[in-house]
């Protein structure tokens, strides 16, 4: 557990010295039924603990805390009411110190900030602090601050970052630096494939992933099945993909075990699970390092390498290092991607910031006995009268005032309201008397966000024409499938249900030049943040295809190392050797070490 005792001079007006202590909730010794949520660090400042009990209060999170000094402490909690309104806040919780519940219920304030929990008399060095969930509906706690002063900690994001840095005395540079041949950020299918391909060619690889399990959208935490073909990389992708079960199926667990074991079997892949990158520094358009933080303990490591792969999905490494990127829909004329039959739904006359949405999958089961589900008045303005007992891929949300990255927490929360509200409606139907929620993801399954710009931008026309490329390393036969929200056609439709438009294409190819950055000389990208137009993404955004991208850049990285060159030079100077290497993967025997 990490907590920080600090001595703040001149903190209060009367110049008293105060012994203060900041507890990061995500670093509790025992998180009980609360889960660590690191998805929105860039927006709200930290990982936090989430009481994701699907309507049933979760077990207390507990941690031991040593105080340097006895005394009376005021206790502040950073939290928010995730649905403020005329109802009882859904995510209510309390703080318990030793055996005492502090006086104020928390989770009531609008927007992230500090709530006063109460005061507590600390009499011994060793103390137990607990989070007591009251509702099971996604209460959230970022941090707890014990202070002897009367000053409320700052809530505004600008001031908070500086305050936090000061309070935890966080060094500006991570104390630990590690060096690799290749650093892959993002352990979705693309990132895993990149790591395996590079490792098989003998590179020392770091794979950094912010969850405890690998696979991203395919993981048992999000549960989207993998689609697409294997292309040249069947052997590697079979280590990572899933069966074609319904989205949301618990069968995802079996594939999870397979995937995690396979990646862990490579000695030269250093796997950093529960580590989230937070910065990348480029000098003269070349990335020197990526900094990452352990999502629970807050430790920092600096990762240095000559080559990096951005498979974060959101293009974070590119974004931080200054890579060109795009977001939203191009005008229909920019790349000539019209589909007359679907007009503006497909590609608009004017460019805009609309993108395909994010899904939160869920399911319920028939219990043996009648079960109750609480009233959820705070969900009904989203759910309306929509009733459902499960959510597949059509449960998707995108709206033009919400950015898929900057507003991801609001998008997730909107989906949670849609789910709980629709399930509450379904529970009112007699046939669902025994229905009980089995699983609701709390992770946002994104389809589209930033797309980094490479030397080539893949578009619909490449798919339509089945154009071949001398560097065509990824191949696909799946239709181009672009989603839109059905509310666009009728505003009486629920805003969380989407529809797909399928454009049938011949077999098509993605060139290697779409898999490295145009302006950052040592950055590959693989996954949905590769170089493509909005419509171009419609086909190859599925995970066997993104896995192909990963494998392709992993092999390219090995040649970069061999010749000490950057990604572009593989295309300009070593293409034949690279394409031979890719081609050989179709027939490559299992390495001795893996037999």
């Amino acid at each position, binding site marked *: 557990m990490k907590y920080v005792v600090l001595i703040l001079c001149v903190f209060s007006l009367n110049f008293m010295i105060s012994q203060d202590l900041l507890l990061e909730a995500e670093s509790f010794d025992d998180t009980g039924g609360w889960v660590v949520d690191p998805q929105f660090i860039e927006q709200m400042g930290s990982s936090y603990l989430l009481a994701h009990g699907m309507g049933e209060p979760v077990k207390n999170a507990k941690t031991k805390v040593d105080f340097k000094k006895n005394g009376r402490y005021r206790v502040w909690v950073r939290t928010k009411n995730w649905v403020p*309104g005329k109802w009882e806040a859904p995510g209510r919780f309390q703080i318990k110190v030793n055996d005492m519940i502090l006086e104020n219920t928390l989770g009531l304030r609008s927007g992230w900030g500090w709530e006063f929990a109460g005061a507590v008399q600390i009499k011994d060095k060793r103390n137990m602090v607990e989070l007591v969930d009251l509702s099971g509906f996604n209460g959230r706690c970022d941090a707890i601050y014990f202070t002897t002063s009367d000053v409320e900690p700052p809530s505004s994001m600008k001031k908070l970052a500086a305050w936090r840095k000061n309070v935890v005395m966080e060094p500006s540079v991570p104390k630990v630096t590690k060096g690799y041949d290749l650093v892959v950020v993002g352990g979705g299918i693309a990132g895993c494939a990149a790591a395996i391909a590079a490792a098989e060619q003998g590179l020392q690889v770091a794979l950094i992933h912010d969850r405890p399990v690998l696979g991203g959208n395919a993981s048992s935490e999000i549960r989207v099945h993998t689609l697409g073909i294997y292309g040249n990389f069947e052997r590697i992708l079979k280590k990572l993909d899933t069966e074609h079960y319904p989205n949301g199926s618990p069968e995802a667990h079996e594939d999870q075990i397979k995937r995690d074991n396979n990646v862990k079997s490579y000695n030269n892949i250093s796997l950093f699970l529960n580590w989230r990158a937070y910065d990348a520094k480029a000098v003269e358009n070349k990335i020197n390092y990526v900094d990452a933080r352990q999502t629970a303990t807050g430790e920092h490591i600096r990762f240095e390498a000559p080559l990096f792969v951005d498979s974060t999905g959101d293009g974070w490494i590119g974004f931080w290092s200054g890579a060109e990127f795009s977001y939203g829909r191009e005008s229909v004329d920019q790349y000539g991607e019209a589909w007359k039959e679907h*007009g503006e739904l497909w590609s608009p006359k*004017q460019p805009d910031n609309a993108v395909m949405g994010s899904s939160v999958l869920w399911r319920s089961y028939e219990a043996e006995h009648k079960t109750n589900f609480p009233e959820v008045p705070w969900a009904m303005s989203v759910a309306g009268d929509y009733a459902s007992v499960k959510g597949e891929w059509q449960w998707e949300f995108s*709206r033009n005032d*919400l950015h898929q990255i900057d507003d991801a927490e609001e998008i997730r929360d909107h989906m949670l309201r849609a789910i709980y509200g629709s399930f509450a409606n379904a529970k009112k139907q007699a046939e669902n008397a025994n229905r009980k929620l089995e699983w609701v993801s709390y992770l946002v399954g994104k389809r589209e966000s930033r797309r980094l710009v490479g030397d080539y931008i893949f578009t619909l026309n490449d798919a339509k024409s089945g154009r071949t490329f001398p560097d065509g390393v990824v191949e696909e036969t799946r239709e181009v499938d672009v989603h839109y929200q059905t509310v*666009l056609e009728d505003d009486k439709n629920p805003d969380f249900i989407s529809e797909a438009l399928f454009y049938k294409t011949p077999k098509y190819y993605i060139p290697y030049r779409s898999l490295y950055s145009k302006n950052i000389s040592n950055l590959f990208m693989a996954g949905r943040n590769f170089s493509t137009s909005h419509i171009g993404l419609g086909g190859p955004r599925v995970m066997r295809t993104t896995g192909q991208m990963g494998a392709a850049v992993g092999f390219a990285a090995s040649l970069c190392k061999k010749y000490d060159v950057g990604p572009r030079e593989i295309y300009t100077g070593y293409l034949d050797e690279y394409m031979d290497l890719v081609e050989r993967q179709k027939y490559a025997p299992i390495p001795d070490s893996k037999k």
Partner: protein
Amino acid sequence: MKTTIGIIFFCGLGFLWTPKMMLAKLNGYQQRTVVKKPDFYAMEWQEGIVLNRKPTSFFIEVETLGNQNVDMLVTDRQRPVLYMADICTPVCADGECRLMYLSLYWNLLGSYVGFDKVEGQALTKHDHVEFVKEDYEKLHQLLLDDNSILKRRKIDELVSKPKGPRTDGVDAIAGATIEEVKESVVDGALYSCYVAWNIAHGPIKAELQEYTNTMFDKELMHYMLMSREVDYQMYALNSLSEAEYMEYRDRIAQIFKESIPLVRTYIVQNLPKLFWETDSLQIPFWSSFAEVDINNRSLLLNHIRKAPIEVLVVLGGNLELMTKNQLRLYLSAVESIIKTNPEINAQLLRFSESSNHTYAYIVAEFLEEMY
């Protein structure tokens, strides 16, 4: 056994007549005028209208039954209104074929809009049970869905075949219709639905739209723009010159208020610049702010910096409708005038102090930082 759609042979049905002869015998079929609203119809019907059938060169090809002509329905003044075709098509499943009769209607853009039953020729299901009213209605709803799952699947992909060794030897109909298909087709009539959908949404669709396009003139544009059919509105809007935007500005503002989000979006995204530079031209669009959907409110707010003060004041009374990011946009637009505009100032204060609004805190924080 592989099941094929299309006619095989009619020997099993004992047909001796030619299909044309059959069609001629059907009571009420192939009337030269249409005076009543089709049995199932998705557009507005003008009571009392008489539509005359006017042959076109277009046809629908039906295997072994030959080409079935598509007519245009025109008013007495020769204004085109719809397209229609009397369809007689075989539907075959499990080695058994029967004929399906329908009169199909398309609008001027080639979109399916309705059908008539043919007297004495009820549609039937696989087990020969006749369609009931709900079945016809379901068929109509299916045909209205231009993005149906039937679009991208072959018929044998629409049924899940039994697993195991029997698969090869069992006709697909023995398998259960897959869930998504089941929801959209008439129970027990997958093949009829499939055939009808593929006729309604076949190549004829694009051909008819193209044909309308060759006739598209100012009169037709006016007709479509004045129509409540959203496809017509979109088509007409897409053809407008800047001068026509001006000419039809009242109608366009009305469409913006009343139409579907997609059409509204087209309008707000494609209004000529002049509209955003002229107070009197943009105000009618702002005045629909409360009525339109969230996406279109965002698109309007993209123009807030060019909005006249009176618009900012009116919006100030609608803060509860705004999302978090919309509020932020609004606040950044009024930041410089708050101190000199007591009305907006009062609206912000009132909103920020309310405990009922999800985003009241955004305004409260904003005011806190200002003062």
